[in-house]
């Protein structure tokens, strides 16, 4: 077995893991803070990727720069969805079940809108620097992948800093630890939930762009992304931001290793099998609970 190939594959895995971490953090927060399992999370990530694609093809806006447009847009859309669709069900007794079905409906609608607008053909992000390669000894790294990786890491850092350093971020963490106590100390749970949902969906858009830098995507991609989201979020511990990031790295390394040795269809089998084993033996995740 070629050693260079293995190392190359491991780096690929790490980059993939970072993108899934950025996509997964919002999923983890909505689950942890609001007890809402947001099935359409990955679909919003896919929408982010498609928006970046169109802005690049039509107006030659770099995918990173276009985030300045798409992130606020997704944030606004998410706030509306929260206000009119999610909030009515948060008082139900079985929030988790109803939220799964409701957001599954949103995922169906979004996926078919994407199909109508962008057709079923697979797409790739072809930025101006695509095709440029950084060579380090025997290893080589494509520029788009490096940029996607850097973007994902920075995105995770921004969200972490927001949660640790700002007053609003601390309110989100308080609401995650104990909604009742937080409310007694003057945290407006409804507003915090809306904010969490908005940030989650907006960061999903960025995560989708991160994944689009790595792989081609089509209107069905979000299904596989969703499985990886569950994997990363459960391994990292629900609501745990840094846990999600490290879980992304672990999954990335395992997938990278599997890709170096196995044909592609067995890689997914390993991923799903792994998720089952983790769920059976450590459903609370690998890491100590901490936002």
């Amino acid at each position: 077995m070629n050693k260079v190939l293995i190392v190359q594959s491991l780096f690929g895995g790490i980059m993939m893991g970072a993108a899934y971490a950025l996509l997964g953090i919002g999923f983890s927060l909505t689950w942890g803070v609001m007890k809402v399992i947001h099935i359409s999370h990955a679909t919003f990530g896919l929408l982010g990727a498609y928006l970046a694609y169109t802005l690049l093809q039509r107006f030659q806006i770099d995918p990173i720069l276009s985030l300045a447009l798409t992130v606020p847009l997704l944030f606004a859309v998410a706030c509306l969805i929260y206000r009119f669709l999610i909030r009515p069900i948060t008082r139900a007794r079985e929030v988790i079940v109803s939220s799964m079905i409701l957001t599954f409906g949103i995922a169906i609608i979004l996926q078919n809108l994407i199909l109508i607008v962008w057709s079923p053909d697979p797409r790739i992000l072809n930025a101006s620097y695509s095709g440029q390669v950084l060579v380090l000894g025997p290893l080589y790294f494509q520029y788009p992948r490096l940029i996607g990786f850097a973007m994902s890491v920075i995105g995770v850092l921004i969200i972490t800093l927001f949660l640790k350093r700002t007053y609003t971020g601390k309110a989100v963490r308080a609401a995650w630890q104990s909604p009742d106590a937080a409310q007694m100390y003057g945290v407006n749970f409804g507003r915090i939930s809306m904010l969490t949902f908005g940030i989650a969906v907006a960061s999903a858009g960025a995560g989708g762009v991160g994944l689009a830098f790595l792989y081609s995507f089509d209107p069905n991609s979000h299904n596989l992304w969703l499985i990886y989201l569950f994997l990363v979020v459960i391994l990292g511990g629900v609501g745990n931001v840094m846990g999600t990031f490290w879980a992304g790295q672990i999954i990335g390394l395992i997938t990278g290793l599997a890709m170096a040795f196995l044909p592609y269809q067995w890689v997914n089998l390993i991923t799903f099998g792994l998720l089952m084993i983790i769920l059976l033996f450590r459903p609370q995740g690998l890491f100590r609970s901490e936002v």
Partner: protein
Amino acid sequence: MWQPVGLTLLLLGLFPWLNPPVYYISLLFTVFMYVTLATSWNLIGGYTGYLSFGHVAFFGLGAYTTAFLFNLLHLSPLLTILSSIPAGGAAALVAIIIGVPCLRLRGPYFAVITLCFAFVVELAVKNLSILGGADGLWLKSMDLPIEIARSILFEVMMVLMLIVVAASFLVGRSRFGAGLRAIKEDEEVAQTMAIDSARLKIGAFVLSALFTGAAGGIYAYYLAYIHPDIVFDINISILVVLMALFGGGGSWLGPVIGAVLLTLINEGLSTFVRAELARIIYGSLFIIVTIYMPNGIIDFFRKRR
């Protein structure tokens, strides 16, 4: 009240022998199948509150067991009917193996692990050449005219549906069903009331898988060709969950109504508008139902009265 129901069933049973267009036989067969699937899912998902998203795995296993046995043993046409028994049996066996560890998990964790289980089974079957792999399996057609074979399978599916609905009705009234409901309300409290929740859950799960597998077995005959993408299609799992919850998971009637309505709506929509638009309307339906009818449409109309 039972006379119109009996009359309807009689008419439905006679229907395929009246030489109607194939489309309507096929539509009714699909309705029966989804009523069977939604009702069997409801035993674990609706009564017990354990949302399984992996039921398509049992459905597919049933289909593959039938196809495999049929090609291996060259059964005669009449024995075909019995083939749904090993199909259900195989699914039930797998349900015991997978259910014992998985049913310790609750809520979303159970939902996710069953979803994963469905993917793992599909990928495994796709990569096993003895089961036809990604080429699928052909079932030799019976030595009967196609209309008669189709009508026989129609009747078999209808009988299975009646058995499953009756079983669901009886379970709902029994001590077993009361135990399952107690688990749904509050599992800890149920356990302190000396309800052996682990055994009841396994019982409901295995019974549910048995019926689902049997339906898969009959479906394999009906199609005469099976492929992992068809019988392990994850959308079947999701559709079944939605049908049961759409109608109302707490009662035996809910999944029946939900399956009939959603199958007909789905069919009607895909006939009249383009597929993407049909699915958008379909998706909106889930949103409307969760917001305005959280306990299913049966409950919604019961309250109105």
